[in-house]
């Protein structure tokens, strides 16, 4: 279990101080947990802190009882961690098998027989068994991500942290990746950080929304949808007319009778033809950002 209390992270000093995290409180239990937020919200900083790479400026973090603000705690957490960073750098001259094997050694899997068995297992798990002996430099973006997840899993981690894992993947790869993460979450904590709302909606039973270093929402996707009910409409308008700026256009579709807008906002005063509609998670996210005063896309 992860317990985060009053977590702060500040970069720079004086006039150039940036508060990347500003008093984050979170409790995360086993299963799949989604961390959603716009670019620059502080997600990667939080992931790196939880991975023991970045030191917090203040607050406390305990992972399975280990205090992450101490060296001993960091060492213990890293020993049970699987981490897939947003910018995945690898030794591309190595084969997939060699790379995962090397990471296994760095994580302390010393017994070579058990290690090679485990390497084969995780490569099978991510569907790379057939190409295990090929150099990584010849792999597609999706295949590299899968090598990344294989190395994260090789030590059978109790906690798996994946930062923007589906960025740059094609739809098929994304679905495969999401399913893989859900399977893995059956017996461990999987922390998925992303700005792609759909990835969270399809996989997580629990989520938090982070913006400007603060937690704006903590709950289930269903709770987020409930909070959005009554704030989503469809409206068809003809000609060059557009909805007013109090409403955020989530999507638009050109039809024969005009343009159909999907709108999120406090109310649709002045648009009698607007039809209330069932919110999706993306609407929920937009409404949350809007209702908490965060900048959302131009209407």
């Amino acid at each position, binding site marked *: 279990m992860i317990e985060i209390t009053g977590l702060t992270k500040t970069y720079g000093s004086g006039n150039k101080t940036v508060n990347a995290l500003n008093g984050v409180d979170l409790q995360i239990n086993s299963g799949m947990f989604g961390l959603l937020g716009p670019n620059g919200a502080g997600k990667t900083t939080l992931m*790196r802190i939880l991975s023991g*790479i*970045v030191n917090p400026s203040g607050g406390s973090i305990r992972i399975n009882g280990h205090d992450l603000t101490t060296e001993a705690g960091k060492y213990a957490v890293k020993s049970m961690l699987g*981490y897939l*960073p947003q910018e995945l*750098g*690898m030794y591309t001259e190595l084969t997939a098998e*060699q790379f995962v*094997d*090397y990471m296994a050694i760095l994580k302390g899997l010393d017994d070579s027989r058990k290690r090679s068995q485990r390497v084969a297992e995780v490569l099978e798990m991510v569907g790379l068994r057939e190409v295990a002996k090929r150099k990584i430099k010849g792999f597609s973006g999706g295949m590299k991500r899968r090598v990344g997840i294989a190395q994260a899993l090789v030590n059978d981690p109790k906690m798996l942290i994946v930062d923007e894992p589906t960025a740059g993947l094609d739809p098929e790869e994304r679905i495969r990746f999401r399913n893989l993460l859900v399977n893995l979450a059956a017996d461990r904590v999987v922390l998925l950080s992303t700005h792609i709302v759909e990835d969270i909606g399809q996989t997580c039973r629990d989520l938090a929304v982070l913006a400007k270093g603060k937690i704006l929402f903590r709950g289930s996707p269903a709770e987020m949808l409930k909070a959005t009910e009554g704030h989503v409409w469809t409206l068809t308008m003809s000609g060059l007319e557009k909805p007013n700026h109090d409403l955020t256009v989530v999507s638009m579709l050109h039809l024969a009778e005009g343009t159909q807008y999907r709108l999120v906002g406090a109310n649709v005063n002045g648009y009698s033809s607007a039809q209330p509609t069932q919110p999706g998670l993306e609407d929920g996210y937009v409404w949350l950002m809007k209702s908490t005063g965060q900048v959302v896309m131009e209407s």
Partner: protein
Amino acid sequence: MKRFSLKYTLLTYRLDQLWFPLAFLAFFIILTLLLRNEVQNYDIARAYVGFAVPLVGGFMAAYAILDDPALELRFATPIRAAQILLERTTLIFLIQAVCANAFLLFSLIIGVDFSPLGNWVNVQLCWLLPTITLIALGTFGALIGAQTMVGSFLVGLVWFVELIVRDGMAVNNWKYAYIFMSILSPEHPDLVSNQIALFALTIAFLFVAWALLRKQERYI
């Protein structure tokens, strides 16, 4: 748990960092063969082991740790900063040791007399101490500046300045930090103090580099 593999340390070593010292070695061997002059051969041998080997070692050390594509993944594993530091700098030192001794062997075969530098141990110290000092300086510079360029700049600057003001370096208090004393002034009365001081400097640079490397967030 050892968390170390020589095989992968070598496989993940960048080949261009191997060509660089080998190119220097080949250049000095060719130069020696072209000149074929006993006095000049001695000077070329001194120039290679006393000046080129430490410089190349220092430059390579500046890139040794930070120029790692999988640095963030490595940081997320439970390996200690000291291990990363030693693994990378030792490899560079070993490459330089092989190059220096290969050239010394080549020089001996063609008849170069190293006796003005003292016994065999003293000849070894001529390349070893400046090399470890500049390796430590390169590593320290890269880590304190959080950029490989800072390390290589610092190495180049110290090497160049000490070479230019070598006569002055040997006579004032800077003599203890004079990296070329073994090769240029083997008869200097303070040679042993200089060698001890260089060793101490190396340890100090490596210690600070280790402390800096523990602050992993500076490098990702």
